[in-house]
């Protein structure tokens, strides 16, 4: 029996619950694998370390983690590896010395471009946009925002990114920040929130302040949580990868390592029904391209995740 721990940023987040579904699916498919779904309630590094410590004590075979902090977890995860536990990160990565491989949901550059494109598609004449991110320490969000900034000048010259603010994946803070953006930038045309908490908060603010049609909210969102804002027009379209697939792939990869697979630059590992993952020189790889949801398909996907 192989025991694989799926450690998430925080429990209760619909995104991670969906990932767990995929992980269980992978376990069922593999047969000899038990998935331990765990994580802290508050998205902090210290809480995740306590979880990791208890997993080390339980001598699990592998830890697949979506990290709250890329650096703070490194010592704890290194200790896990010293005790013979395979460690991979997925979704939100850990610094290379703290894991054996990292599974990106998608290419960072691609995500960065997608979130800008989602806004630009509905702004033919260009205009001001702002980003409402998660916590200022989130690895993945920061990487996407960097990528987005990088593509702006050449691909979207008339889009003007006026500000990046942080809502800490806390609905109140995100709401306040969204309001602040709207008050500070009267010409704001779109709010881009590459986080499922922030995007809901921003869409609610736009709805409340009767700004539907004036400000378009977009970003990364779970269809089930976000459906009503596509329906009411606060948002034209959002994107996301499939968290079920992500959880599935993470468990498959962890299982590969436990069963003898080796993570090194250039290696090709199997992700079951998701195909294969090729590792780059930092031992990370991307799963698939983000998928866009709009009026045409949200109904269907909101029933799935």
């Amino acid at each position, binding site marked *: 029996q192989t025991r694989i721990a799926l450690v998430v940023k*925080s*429990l*209760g*987040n*619909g995104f991670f*619950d969906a990932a767990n579904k995929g992980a269980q699916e992978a376990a069922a498919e593999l047969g000899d694998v038990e998935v331990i779904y765990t994580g802290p*309630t*508050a998205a902090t590094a210290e809480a995740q370390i306590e979880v990791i410590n208890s997993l080390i004590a339980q001598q699990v075979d592998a830890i697949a983690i979506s990290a709250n902090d890329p650096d703070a977890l490194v010592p704890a995860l290194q200790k896990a590896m010293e005790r013979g536990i395979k460690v991979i990160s997925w979704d939100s990565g850990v610094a290379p010395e703290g894991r054996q491989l990292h599974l990106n949901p998608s290419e960072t550059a691609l995500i960065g471009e997608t979130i800008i494109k989602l806004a630009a598609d509905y702004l033919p004449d260009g205009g001001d946009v702002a980003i409402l991110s998660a916590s200022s320490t989130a690895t993945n969000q920061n990487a996407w925002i960097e990528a987005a900034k990088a593509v702006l000048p050449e691909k979207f010259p008339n889009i003007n990114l006026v500000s990046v*603010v*942080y809502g800490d994946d*806390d*609905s*109140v803070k995100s*709401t*306040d*920040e969204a*309001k*602040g*953006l709207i*008050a*500070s930038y*009267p010409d704001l045309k779109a709010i881009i929130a590459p986080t499922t*908490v922030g995007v*809901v*908060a921003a869409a*609610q603010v736009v709805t*409340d302040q009767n700004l539907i049609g004036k400000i378009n909210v977009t970003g990364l969102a779970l269809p*089930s*949580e*976000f*459906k*009503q*804002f596509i329906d009411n027009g606060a948002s034209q379209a959002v994107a996301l990868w499939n968290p079920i697939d992500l959880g599935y792939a993470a468990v498959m990869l962890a299982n590969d390592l436990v069963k003898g697979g080796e993570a090194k630059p250039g290696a090709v590992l199997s992700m079951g029904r998701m195909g294969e993952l090729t590792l780059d020189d930092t031992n990370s790889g991307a799963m698939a391209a983000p998928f866009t949801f709009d009026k045409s398909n949200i109904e269907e996907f*909101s029933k799935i995740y």
Partner: protein
Amino acid sequence: MSRLLKHREVFLFLAILLVLVLVTARFPRFAQPGNLLTIFNDTSILMMLALGQMAVILTRSIDLSMAANLALTGMIVAMTNAAFPGVPVPLLMAMCVVVGAGLGAFNGVLVWKLNIPPIVVTLGTLTIYRGLVFVISGGAWVNAAQMSPDFINLQRAVFLGLPLLSWFAIVTALLFWVVMTRTPLGRSLYAIGVNPTASVYTGINVGRTKFYAFVISGAVAGLCGYLWISRYVIASVEVAGGYELTIIAACVIGGVSIAGGIGSVAGVLLGAIFLGVINNALPVINISPFWQMAISGTAILLAVVLNARGERRQGRVILKKAEAV
């Protein structure tokens, strides 16, 4: 004028005006009536919670569990709404008040019957209540899509130019004002804080009165549970995490003495509004959000220093009295 200034409410009001003027100087749109009403509306929940907290602090107690109570009641009402969308919202609100009051009563009983210090009781129930949110929800969030439109929109309905949420705060404030100044219960809350021994000798049942204070703060927290959830349209374990200290900060800034017996409804409202204005003003005048925390910390410290200056007894002034004769 100098007599007026002695009242910390006036002082606080001026401080708020000053912030408004300063911000408006840089950003004229800030002081528009619409924006001010928005700030008021945004602060409504904090005002109500701070009023509930004041009832407790007056009796030399403290309720650290208000935010957890809010989260638990909020989760219960959100799950109820998700499961039975047909239940009318006013009924749900009544349920919130009852559940919240019940959670407050649990604190109150421990304080009253077992004589455990309130800070210990509520430190314990703070973690218990929040843990229960996780237990009943299994950690899952209740999101906008699962809530009924009525549930979400009730507080947003506009009446006489103000959203209902603001009206809730106004009515709560009036109710508190009447209770605090015109009812035996309200006066007992003050009396206990001013002099607990004397209260016993006066025939006030100190334990039971504290119990009522906790029921009041619990009921308010419960009602705010609904208001919070329907405002931010998400119910999760982390709802209002750490907010207990913000509530206390609003009371302190509003001149409620942590030693009990001193505090007014007007002061608490202004204290909450002060925090609301600061939080709203910072993003608007483009101060990095990272400054926000340090600024509100400084505001709290300044408020305490100023309040203490006002409270300090001036001694008995034997010489002056002698001259006056």
